[in-house]
C-alpha cells in the first residue's frame, strides 16, 4: 500500500525532480533517435497496417543487419516527420515486373502472402539500379497510377518497422 502511495503520490523532493528530468531526457533520446513513433495515414499498406493505426520505426535495424526481401521500412522525404511506409521487394541488379497483379523477379513468380487485395497491375520489366531498392505498398487494390512505389536510394531508408 505504501509502495502504491509512493508511486502515485510521490514526495516532491529533489530526487523526484531528478528522476523526472532523467526519464524525460531518456524518453526524448529514445523516441527521437531510436524508436520513432509512427501514425499511419493512408491505405497503401492495408491490410498489414491500417489507416489511423500506430507503429514504431526502429532506426538502428540496418546498422546490424542488411536489407531483406519483404522487410517493411520507412522511407524519408525531406526529413523524418513525414515518411513513407513500404515493403522492400527487389534489390539492385534484379529485374522486376507485374503480370496481371502477380510479381515476377528475374522472371520467376514470387508469392506475396501479405497481399490480400487482388489487382490487375501490369508493369513492364525493369532493373533496379545500383544503390537502390524497390519498395511497394501491400494494398494492390488501389489504382496503380495512384499508388506511390518504385526504386529509392537506400540512403533514404530510415529504419525497420515494429511490430
Amino acid at each position: 500500500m505504501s509502495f502504491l502511495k509512493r508511486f502515485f503520490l510521490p514526495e516532491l523532493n529533489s530526487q523526484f525532480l531528478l528522476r523526472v528530468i532523467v526519464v524525460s531526457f531518456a524518453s526524448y533520446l529514445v523516441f527521437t533517435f531510436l524508436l520513432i513513433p509512427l501514425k499511419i495515414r493512408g491505405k497503401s499498406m492495408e491490410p498489414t497496417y491500417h489507416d489511423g493505426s500506430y507503429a514504431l520505426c526502429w532506426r538502428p535495424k540496418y546498422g546490424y543487419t542488411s536489407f531483406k526481401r519483404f522487410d517493411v521500412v520507412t522511407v524519408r522525404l525531406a526529413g523524418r516527420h513525414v515518411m513513407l511506409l513500404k515493403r522492400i521487394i527487389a534489390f539492385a541488379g534484379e529485374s522486376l515486373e507485374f503480370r496481371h497483379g502477380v510479381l515476377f523477379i528475374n522472371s520467376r513468380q514470387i508469392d506475396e502472402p501479405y497481399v490480400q487485395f487482388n489487382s490487375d497491375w501490369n508493369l513492364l520489366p525493369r532493373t533496379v539500379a545500383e544503390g537502390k531498392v524497390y519498395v511497394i505498398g501491400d494494398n494492390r487494390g488501389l489504382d496503380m497510377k495512384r499508388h506511390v512505389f518504385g526504386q529509392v536510394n537506400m540512403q533514404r531508408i530510415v529504419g525497420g518497422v515494429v511490430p
Partner: protein
Amino acid sequence: MNNKLAVYSLLILCVVVGGYFVLHSSDEQQIKKNLALLAEYCSTTAQEPLLETMQKISQAAKLCRDPCEVKIPSFSIDREFTQQEFSQHLMLLKKQLPTTRFNFTDTSIIMPGEDSAAITTTVQLKGTNAAGRFADVYELDIGAEKIDGNWLFTSFHVVEFIEK
C-alpha cells in the same frame, strides 16, 4: 586591467555572436513565415466564398517572384510561370481539390548568400476529392531571394525520389 579587457572582449564576442544568430535566424524565420502563409493561401476550406479564394490566390502569387520557375518531371513541366499563370493554375487546383489542407514540414534552409536561400521541405496535402479522403506528400526544393527587403519564392522543384 587585463581582467577588464577580458570581460570587455567577452562581452563584445557575445554581442557579435548573438547578433549574428539574431540576424541570421530572422531571415530564416521570415522564410518559414512565408511558407506557412503560402500553405494557408493554397489551402481551401469547404464552401469557401469565391471572393476569399480570389484573395488567397492573389496573396499566394505575391509571395512568388514574377516569373517563378516550376519543375515537375513526372508531368514534364520545366519552365517559368508568370504570376498570372501561377494564379490560374492555383485556381484550377483549388477547383479540383475543393477541401484540401497544405502543410510544410521538415523544412531546412541553407543560405548560400545574404539574399538567397535554398529550401528543402515536405509538403503534405490532406483533403477530400471525388474518390474520397486522400493524403499526398511530395518533397520540394524551393529557391528564394530577398528582393527589396522581402523574401520571395523564385523556384519550385518537385523531387522525384521514387521511380517506378
